[in-house]
């Protein structure tokens, strides 16, 4: 199995505030990694660095042997934790725009996702409820035939029915030739979907491993292990 993502000795500081410190990670293709940790542990910063939206202070990131750049943006699909679509735009028009930007955007797949998610596409984005907006965002991101998917808090502020749909969409989209990182602090919902987990603590990995092996070793769920790791914070 070859590594799709390699991160070595990554540091990121905002002025004196050190967010990531000597961070290392290897992610092979075919894996879904859960990036777990409370607010402020560095999850979003890490994803933005991989997506190429931030520059490392030092250290290296390689995605398919290429450092984050306009090239990797062609095969890394990023779901930010904030709104990133034009609010005044109709969904169909936004799909045209997305297709212009990303050569790997599959419009047929996008409309399949929209049907699956029960979102009507002849409306403006700002008319959508929070849950439907989240489903729409995810549909855009998963409809790219990318090598690496980065999902920052895909379940935040979404009701349980929508959560089920989103989790189902993530599983449907699983591909052996790509990998996915999902950041969240809602561990119990996403747990059965994850291969690997990494617990982030003050910018370094406090604990990482295969989710099934961790369950077997400790006789605990990932959610319970999460509570243990961060209890003293």
């Amino acid at each position, binding site marked *: 199995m070859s590594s799709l993502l390699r991160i070595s000795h990554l540091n990121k500081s905002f002025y004196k505030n050190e967010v990531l410190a000597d961070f290392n990670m290897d992610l092979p293709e*075919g*894996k*879904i990694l859960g990036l777990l940790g409370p607010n402020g542990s560095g999850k979003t910063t890490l994803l933005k660095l991989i997506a190429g939206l931030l520059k490392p202070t030092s250290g290296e990131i390689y995605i398919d042997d290429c450092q984050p750049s306009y090239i990797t943006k062609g095969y890394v699909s990023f779901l930010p934790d904030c709104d990133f679509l034009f609010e005044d735009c109709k969904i169909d028009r936004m799909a045209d725009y997305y297709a212009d930007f990303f050569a790997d955007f599959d419009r047929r797949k996008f409309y399949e996702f929209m049907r699956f998610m029960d979102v009507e596409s002849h409306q403006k984005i700002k008319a959508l409820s929070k849950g439907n907006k989240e489903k729409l965002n995810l549909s855009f991101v998963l409809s790219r035939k990318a090598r690496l998917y980065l999902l920052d808090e895909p379940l935040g502020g979404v009701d349980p029915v929508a959560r*089920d749909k989103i*989790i*189902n969409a993530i*599983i*449907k989209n*699983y591909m052996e030739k790509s990998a996915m990182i999902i950041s969240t602090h809602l561990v*119990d919902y996403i*747990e*059965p*979907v*994850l*291969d690997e987990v990494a617990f982030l603590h003050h910018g370094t990995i406090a604990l990482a491993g295969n989710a*099934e*092996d961790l*369950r*077997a070793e400790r*006789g*605990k*769920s*990932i*959610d*319970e292990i999460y509570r243990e790791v961060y209890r003293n914070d």
Partner: protein
Amino acid sequence: MAYAFDERVPIYLQIIDEIKRQLVTNKLKGGDKMPSVRELSEGMEVNPNTVQRAYQELERLGITYTQRGMGTFVTQDEGIIISIKEEMAMDAVRQFAESMQSLGMSPQDTIKCLEDYFEKGAAQ
């Protein structure tokens, strides 16, 4: 609908248990074709690699076999199905015996309770 897992136990072991249960209750029969890894993972809302791991283990145990290009099938070996049933029955007995023991019941009391239970059940 997602399957309700106990997430303190590795999920692939629970998938194996569920398939064994379907076998002894005849929901799955010898020679039946198993769902594909992708179908089962979507149905159970579980990572496909986890389902793959369960399938590998089932094959290692001789419960299923793979036919190239055709898929995975349930064994037609009756002996294996009978031994799974015995094994699951022993597990149930062990759990029962342990919970009776924790109530301070002696083996004799336990057997007596069980006999009473079945007699009452038969009377109803």
